[in-house]
């Protein structure tokens, strides 16, 4: 057990624990806050794994934007303080499928990697990652930017009632 291992274990425990709270909490908004903790812990895992840039992008995009959008949506729809009764379906089928997936994947990974050690990667990968993205992966990158643009337009069209209404009148 090295320092990195202890960090991985601790952060992993936080990530999984708060992730479990995300999907089981009966407090609507609180599960959003647990998601923040979980994603933050995953960012910490990225740091330990030497993917510094990915970690900060994770914080910037997920914690700073995605979760805030989710919380925003929760608060715009309904956000009672305290538990809500009607959040869940019966637990059993979901639990069975979830446990199956979890056990299966875990068994797969444990079987594949056992308790082997790998050398820690050297940190500071912003340059390397940049060369990768704009070298080998430049086409997917451009495709992604088009996807982002279309998602932007789509979100605006969906959320602007005036645009939708005009379409409905035309049809």
């Amino acid at each position, binding site marked *: 057990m090295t320092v990195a291992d202890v960090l991985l274990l601790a952060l992993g425990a936080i990530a999984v624990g708060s992730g479990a709270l995300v999907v089981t909490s009966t407090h609507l908004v609180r599960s959003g806050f647990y998601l923040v903790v979980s994603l933050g812990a995953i960012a910490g895992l990225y740091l330990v794994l030497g993917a510094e840039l990915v970690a900060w992008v994770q914080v910037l995009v997920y914690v700073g934007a995605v979760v805030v*959008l989710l919380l925003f*949506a929760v608060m715009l729809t309904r956000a009672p303080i305290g538990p809500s009764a009607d959040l*869940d379906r019966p637990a059993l089928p979901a639990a069975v499928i979830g446990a199956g997936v979890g056990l299966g994947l875990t068994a797969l990974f444990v079987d594949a990697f056992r308790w*082997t050690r790998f050398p820690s990667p050297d940190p500071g990968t912003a340059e390397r990652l940049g060369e990768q993205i704009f070298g080998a992966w430049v086409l997917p990158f451009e495709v992604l930017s088009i996807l982002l643009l279309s998602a932007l337009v789509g979100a605006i069209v969906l959320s602007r009632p005036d645009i939708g209404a005009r379409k409905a009148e035309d049809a």
Partner: protein
Amino acid sequence: MHVVIPYVVGALLFALGVYGVLRRRNAILVLMAVELMLNAVNLILVTADVSVRAVLPGTGGVFALFVIVLAAAEVGVGLAIVLQFYRMRRIVVVDEVRLDTDEERVAG
């Protein structure tokens, strides 16, 4: 470092995401569970960078970045749909979404 730890963490997070998607009735909570699954995949991609010898080093990180961008787009459009739906029906419960088109015409 023992890479099996982040791998197992990723597997467990993915399982939790699956459980959440199947269990939750609130559309926004379903989206949160989907985020958990995406993050599990990201974690596994980044861990693969350390453990799997690839032709291009750092490919897992690049893929993780791509997935993060995809997730941002997905959440943007998904929440737009959910909010639009809430504006029309005042509910965000996925079980109660009526799929018959007659009602759609009345409400829309």
